């Protein structure tokens, strides 16, 4: 029976769906003391903004903006430390971006981005002002969605055995044959694997093709684990969101054996690149 594809509701870490947040472990040996600024994203805003005490860390701090002209970094105070990519921390980073996205187009920063001082951030905004402007403009009214497609390999093998004559024959020989079946087995494995691979490629290509009509761009990421055949991100124009949504659900209903995990909208993690050039300061400051 076709399963309905539903966009997953995001967890809101603030709403205590999580067990209590464990005290943060010190990153040890890195001498991470003192105050820094955790940066979540860059937005367009000339006005100072506050987003509430939703910052990352065991004791959430105020999320606010640091400005250069009309470009702003969304930040909160944090000890200078390296944040582990725990679910709580990653969700805290993401939930701030989500709150900001409600009213602004964002250029998301990587998880764990900590600047030493406000001046460092202003310097980043100043030196990259034009590029941030340009990217924010291009990103306007575009949303990122994630789509992962999984299957059950064992289920698919049974289907292949039913549908492909040569494999069915081989399977029959294997179960009836006495004595050594080594070569038949090797042959069987080879054929089954080739059939799995070609089916996976065919599904993925057809899904990507169909979604390319309703998206601006797509990115292919490495599948996670042995059940995933597709792990993609799509950039979708805001006015096509409904069409994209409908298309994903229609495709999901058509492929019985596939499990669609559909998420978003995300900040455009897969469609913006930020590279900083760093230089070692001479002896301390």
């Amino acid at each position: 029976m076709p399963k309905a594809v539903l966009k997953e509701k995001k967890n809101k870490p603030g709403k205590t769906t999580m067990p209590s947040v464990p005290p943060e472990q010190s990153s040890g040996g890195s001498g991470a003391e003192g105050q820094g600024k955790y940066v979540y994203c860059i937005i367009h805003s000339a006005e100072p903004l506050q987003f509430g005490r939703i910052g990352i860390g065991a004791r959430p701090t105020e999320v606010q903006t640091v400005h250069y002209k009309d470009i702003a970094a969304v930040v909160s105070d944090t000890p200078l430390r390296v944040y582990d990519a725990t679910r709580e921390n990653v969700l805290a980073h993401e939930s701030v971006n989500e709150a900001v996205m409600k009213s602004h187009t964002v250029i998301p920063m990587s998880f764990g981005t900590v600047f030493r001082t406000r001046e460092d951030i202003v310097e980043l905004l100043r030196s990259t002002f034009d590029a941030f402007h340009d990217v924010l403009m291009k990103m306007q009214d575009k949303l990122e969605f994630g789509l992962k497609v999984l299957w059950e390999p064992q289920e698919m093998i049974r289907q292949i055995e039913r549908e492909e004559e040569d494999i069915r024959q081989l399977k029959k020989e294997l179960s009836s044959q006495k004595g050594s079946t080594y070569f038949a087995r090797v042959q069987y494995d080879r054929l089954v694997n080739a059939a799995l691979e070609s089916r996976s490629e065919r599904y993925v290509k057809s899904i990507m093709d169909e979604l390319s009509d309703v998206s601006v761009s797509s990115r292919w990421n490495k599948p996670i684990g042995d059940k995933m055949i597709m792990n993609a991100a799509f950039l979708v124009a805001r006015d096509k969101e409904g069409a994209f949504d409908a298309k994903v659900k229609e495709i999901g209903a058509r492929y019985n054996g596939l499990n669609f995990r559909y998420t978003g909208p995300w900040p455009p993690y897969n469609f913006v690149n930020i590279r900083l050039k760093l230089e070692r300061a001479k002896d301390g400051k």
Partner: protein
Amino acid sequence: MIILDSLIIGGIKFVLDKVATAVDRELNDDTSLREELLAAQMRLELNEIDEDEFRRLESELLSRIREIRERHAAEPEEGEYKITGAEVTFDGDESDNH
């Protein structure tokens, strides 16, 4: 539950503090551990493991990632870094679509 692959795999791209000086090497080094972390989240999402098992895997993987980081931090490359420039690019032009 959601998975934030880009965040977890992307890791720390830059942090203006000495602990982040080993970023490039670190990414090469711990990518497979980060992938395992994602795989564990996927298994939790698919109910193949329970919350306790996930917690156990998560803390084990994160502590291995931390070890790698600390090994790098101990190398003689510490010091203050400053930004001398930055590039920001939009990567979603229509032409990228296949």
